């Protein structure tokens, strides 16, 4: 069959593109436009105010804390998820008895809906009767109210995110590990390199393309997933576990300030784009293999 002619292809694509534009691209553009307008009320219709919303944004003290939270969250969860997933991939790749079961267990958290994961961890962290509290008591330690105290709430969120994501990244690393030519490792072994040296000098550099892919995905996810914040802490106590997207949600629905919510959305997208760019640049420079 010859290629589909142009008019027919366009007809087939009209509906999908319209749906996509109406429900994802239009809302995105609308955020950008809204960010230059004031919040309309019944008495005062919204009017063009230029960069005023952005001035509010710069002066917003809560936002500073939230940016710090989000940054810390990304800085900790991304490397942690990467390190853990490489570790799990190595374990599974080692061809020991029971690897099929291990692979399934590692992958299990990834398959679970985020909302269920958030609740599972809510019970796990529960002060007093939660399993973690009980283990602390078992070892004679003072139990901690993980979600209820400002010093631990963000870290508790991080643990959930890494738990959920590492299994997915493991799959990509597993695939990459199996593509590492065995003769390279063999040659290094003959030259007298130990297993640790082989891993850091041969395997890890070969995994770089996968790491780029995983790192970018982990970065995007660290900003996009907030189900657990909504379920477990609602950003509290005292905004200690609020992430940027959660703040947008709170401003838009809690304070009903959709103009400022839009401004924050634009800010977040810019930030995300910038960071993805930097990440690509840094990691790309070190990627020698394609």
């Amino acid at each position, binding site marked *: 069959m010859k290629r589909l002619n142009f008019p027919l*292809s366009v007809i087939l694509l009209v*509906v999908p593109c319209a749906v996509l534009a109406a429900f994802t691209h239009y809302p995105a553009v609308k955020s950008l436009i809204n960010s230059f307008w004031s919040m309309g009320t019944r008495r005062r219709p919204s009017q063009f105010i230029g960069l005023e919303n952005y001035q509010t944004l710069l002066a917003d003290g809560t936002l500073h804390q939230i940016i710090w939270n989000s940054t810390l969250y990304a800085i900790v969860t991304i490397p942690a998820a990467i390190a853990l997933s490489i570790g799990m991939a190595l374990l599974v790749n080692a061809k020991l008895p029971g690897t099929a079961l291990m692979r399934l267990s590692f992958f299990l958290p990834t398959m679970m809906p985020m909302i269920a994961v958030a609740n599972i961890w809510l019970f796990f962290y529960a002060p007093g009767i939660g399993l973690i509290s009980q283990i602390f008591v078992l070892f004679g330690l003072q139990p901690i109210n993980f979600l209820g105290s400002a010093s631990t709430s963000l870290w508790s969120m991080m643990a959930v995110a890494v738990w959920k994501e590492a299994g997915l990244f493991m799959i*990509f690393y597993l695939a990459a590990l199996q593509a590492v030519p065995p003769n390279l490792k063999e040659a290094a072994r003959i030259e007298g390199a130990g297993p640790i040296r082989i891993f850091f000098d041969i395997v890890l550099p070969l995994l770089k393309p*996968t790491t780029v892919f995983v790192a970018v995905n982990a970065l995007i996810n660290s900003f996009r997933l907030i189900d657990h914040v909504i379920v477990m802490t609602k950003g509290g106590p005292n905004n200690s576990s609020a992430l940027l997207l959660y703040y947008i949600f709170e401003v838009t629905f809690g304070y009903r300030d959709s103009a400022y919510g*839009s401004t924050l959305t634009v800010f977040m997208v810019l930030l995300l784009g910038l960071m993805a760019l930097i990440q690509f640049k840094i990691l790309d420079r070190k990627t020698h293999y394609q």
Partner: protein
Amino acid sequence: MIQAAWIPRAIILGLFAFVIFGPLANMLLWAFTEVWYFPHKLPVEWGFGFWARVFKPRGNAMLSLNNSVVIAIFVVITCLLVSIPAGYALARGRLPWRSLILVAFLLPQAFPSVAVHINIARIFYGFGLNGTFVGVVLVHTVQGLVFSVWIATAAFSAIDRELEEAARNIGASPLRTFFTITLPMAMPGIMASAIFVFLQSLDEFTGTFFVGVPDIMTMPLLLFTASMEGNYQIASITALILLVPSVFFMLIIERFLKADVLAKVGS
């Protein structure tokens, strides 16, 4: 005799097992609890009382399970109706901006979905779609589309064009060729995307939360409400029900996890 090398490995595996299954075990305890309060280490009373409440016909849970499944079915149908023609056009069409269109379909994946949902909720509010069945189906469909269009495009691109040409040469009409040759061959990929879209819709929380509340109750929303009310038993049972399709799906795709299939991803 146990070799010394096994000891650190066993400790690592034990830690992994605890970290992965500890939270799950905690949830299972709650699912079979009648009464549990501090300082008891284990539930004070065990039982199936809350299971009976969840599975009560016409109960809240059964209603929301029903809602979730019906919504997911509609989402899959809508996604397939849109993505099959689109995928076919993108795979076979003579299109000038093909890659641009594909990127446009991928873009929402990078854009924070909650931000989109918030805006959709506002737009839907204007059309009176908030709290309606159609509104929720639309929100889920938009999310599923990103994925299903890409998969459909890949599935159609992978089909050997000569088979289609052979069918045409012996006199089959283009439409007949599509339905007897092309579509059946693309079916595995399309089915995979349908399953994925189904699960995604079943598990979707934030979009439903923004657009559907308070009139459309789905399983994830019920789970959220139960846990906010401090009803950990109902929340655990609901979470367990939600896990069933995911785990089932995982067992199906388990053979694909053997990695040679995924070897090309990301590199």
